[in-house]
């Protein structure tokens, strides 16, 4: 970079300055929103009893932490979500492979997948609770139900979009269908799998929270419902903010995974 022209250096500085400004504005917006919320509540522009306020939400979080409950609730939600999207992704990929394997079956099953994709999976919640009982199993089932269909559809479409000539190449070597699957379809679908994972992390979190709403004794979803029932809005807000953090961290972890895999290639 040392021997680049002054014009180029100015260009690079400009880019850096813009990146810093972007980050700064993002932080300002976040702090501003919380400040505005706090000020509005303190000055009674909004009713703090029903809107709560950042300091109260923070106190609620600290109380949870002191009682040792914070990590339990976070642990449940994160664990259920991770279990949900891991299982959902595995099941989704296996189904997508089955659909790819038999074009005829994929045509037969097509309307069912369309229906399963369009019904709100949340509607199945009560069934899971009756079948699996309240708690972990029903919540994970919910997380899987919400995310799995999208994974199936994304993976199957990804499989179908692979250049047919890559498959033809293997066929000229006399490859079996299993060999085509293992040597072309799956390795070529790694980017699709990461894209599906990104979508399914968010959806699994939705499933987990809804599952916790419907029947559980722990997790952020449980805290939100419980807080609402006892009219403790600070607890609700604390749980919602924690939930946002959880979703950001999970998304970030998938991005790290993506980086690793893409760099590896």
């Amino acid at each position: 970079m040392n021997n680049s022209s002054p014009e180029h250096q100015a260009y690079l500085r400009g880019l850096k300055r813009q990146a810093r400004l972007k980050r700064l504005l993002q932080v300002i917006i976040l702090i501003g929103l919380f400040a505005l919320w706090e000020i509005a509540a303190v000055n009674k522009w909004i009713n703090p009893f029903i809107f709560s306020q950042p300091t109260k939400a923070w106190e609620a979080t600290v109380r949870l932490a002191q009682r040792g409950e914070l990590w339990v609730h976070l642990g449940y939600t994160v664990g259920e979500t991770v279990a949900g999207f891991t299982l959902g992704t595995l099941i989704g990929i296996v189904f997508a492979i089955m659909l790819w394997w038999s074009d005829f079956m994929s045509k037969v099953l097509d309307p069912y997948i369309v229906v399963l994709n369009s019904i709100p999976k949340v509607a199945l919640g009560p069934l899971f609770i009756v079948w699996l009982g309240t708690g972990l199993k029903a919540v994970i089932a919910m997380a899987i139900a919400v995310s799995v269909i999208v994974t199936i559809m994304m993976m199957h479409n990804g499989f179908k979009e692979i250049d047919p000539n890559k498959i033809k190449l293997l066929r000229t070597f006399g490859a079996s269908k299993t060999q085509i699957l293992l040597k072309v379809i799956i390795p070529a679908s790694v980017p699709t799998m990461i894209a599906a994972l990104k979508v399914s992390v968010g959806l699994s979190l939705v499933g987990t929270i809804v599952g916790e709403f419907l029947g559980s004794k722990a997790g952020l979803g449980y805290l939100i419902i419980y807080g609402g029932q006892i009219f403790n809005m600070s607890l609700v807000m604390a749980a919602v903010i924690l939930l946002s953090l959880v979703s950001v961290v999970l998304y970030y972890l998938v991005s790290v995974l993506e980086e690793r895999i893409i760099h590896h290639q």
Partner: protein
Amino acid sequence: MRAILELENVSLSYHTLEGEILALQDINLQVMPEEFISIVGPSGCGKSTLLSLIAGLLKPSKGTIRLDGVPITGTTQQVGYMLQQDYLFEWRTILDNALLGLEVLRKRTPENIEKVKQMLVDYGLGGFEKYYPQQLSGGMRQRVALIRTLAMEPKVFLLDEPFSALDYQNRLAVGAEVVKILREQKKTVIMVTHDIPEAISMANRVLVFTKRPGRIKSEHIVTLNANGCNPLACRESPEFSRYYTKIWKELNSDE
């Protein structure tokens, strides 16, 4: 000398909802060992389909194809097929790409790995084993694709416009190189192309196909290569333009 490859009254029909399309009609062809045949014809004349038939990817609707006197019923290691692009897999290293064919045949043995490594060195790709395809130039990639096929030791090479993805400069150079290697290795080659100069400069025999349904319209014995001159030099020879004019006229005359 006996023909290595014989096509006898080969026809192929495609079936679609709209009906039946006759793609190839009554192809009769005898290919001698070490012969280099170019096939030219209008697009959609079934040239590529013919290669798929010889490769055993498709079955003829009528007629038989024999390799060394034995009818072809499916893909065989004896026939190597090079497609229009190199189709190297971007997730595999150069060495792993070159080994793909052997791997499919479950012949990824230590000896074969050594053999392929040596081939990479021989064809100017030494030191690139651990690179990925996207780090190589078009010409180098084409050589890797060639090694991938050569490693399986086929007797008959089918080339389907193998240089069409390269720019003009590279196309001439890589084409000359590939032809040289295939000659040295004493391979029998059938190449499909729409580039008449390419067809003439490489082949011993040029077949002109008709529009669909594809039939052999005419056959031109090319003697430019008899003394083994390379395709680039062939293009310089005075007879070259004579062949070119003749074949060009054939292609552009209706029946």
